[in-house]
């Protein structure tokens, strides 16, 4: 509890976010579960340029190399 009502309305979760339990946060910070290169990948995306925690991303090295300039 804080002395600020707005903050007390927050949903609090343990961090770091476990990739095995994808949690959809919001548009700003969403956990996407997609299939990349035949493997499940979980990513935590960031709000408008804000720094984020390291997400566990099981992208195949092939995909990484292909799309990284």
């Amino acid at each position: 509890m804080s002395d600020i009502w707005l903050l007390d309305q927050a949903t609090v979760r343990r961090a770091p976010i476990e990739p095995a339990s994808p949690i959809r946060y919001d548009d700003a910070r969403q956990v996407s579960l997609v299939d990349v290169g035949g493997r499940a990948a979980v990513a935590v995306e960031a709000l408008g340029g804000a720094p984020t925690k390291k997400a566990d991303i099981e992208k195949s090295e092939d995909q990484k190399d292909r799309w990284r300039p």
Partner: protein
Amino acid sequence: MTAQVLIVTNERDLDADRVVCELDRRGVDVLRCNTERLTDWLVVHDVGHGWRLTAPSGRTATSDSVRAVWWRRPEPPTLPLQGLSAGCREALDDQWQALMEGLARCGKRRWVSRPAALRRAEDKLLQLMSARTVGLSVPDTVVINDVETAKRFIAGHGGRAVAKSLTAAHWEDDSEAAFVFARLIGEEDLPDDPAAFRRAPVVLQEAINPKHDVRATVVGDCVLAAATPPTTAEVDWRLEPERTWKAVELPPMTVKGCQELVANLGLRFAGIDLAIAEDGTPWFLEANPNGEWGWLVDAAGLPVPVALADELTA
């Protein structure tokens, strides 16, 4: 010279992968700039004349070669220097951000969307007022730090209202991450201490409940909508990731309103949240100027990557 598409985002942007794949399938020359790696790139902006980005691989994008820019989710560059204070890092991040956003001031190529427009369109109150001007229904809304007025607002709307933050309220530390979702509240949820309510403004909005939630993804003039069934458990569908989504067609007037709203906000893309009331009235809730859409491809089959590729190559 082959026209290029430049994508400015981050390495973990899996939805960008989908668009890259679609553009690649069409034979479009794509250069993706993951901005964490910007210090490995060379950037020259000859002010008033043009700019050139050179990737570590040697590939380039210039103000002449680029047909369209998809300004997606850039992040601050990862600086190799150790021992920088947080203040120093912030100052350096600001330099990079200003440089990259400044690229939009040169030339008339298509931006999806321009950084300045994205920032402006994040203003939730501007969104609500703009939505009203294009004919979309907007729930009664107040931004408030006065608990007595809040009580009257709630009482005046059947004893319930939706409380939400004015901008995305998210924070984290080493052990916890927190986010303020939209919540249905009554007077009993307000604090006894008026000071606790005074210390941060909050948005109170007339509750449309029960409702079908709709996410309308607008890409240029294309409106792709998906709906999720009503629930009374939560007003914020983001708290219920197990929900199902299916593609739906919106009434023509709602489609037109969404198109006009996005255009009036100066955007080429937005994820618009609507609530369809029991009587069928579509209510505008908010617009997400760079909203997510990946789950809608998987869950509802919405061809968002195709629409984005169309927009970037139009």
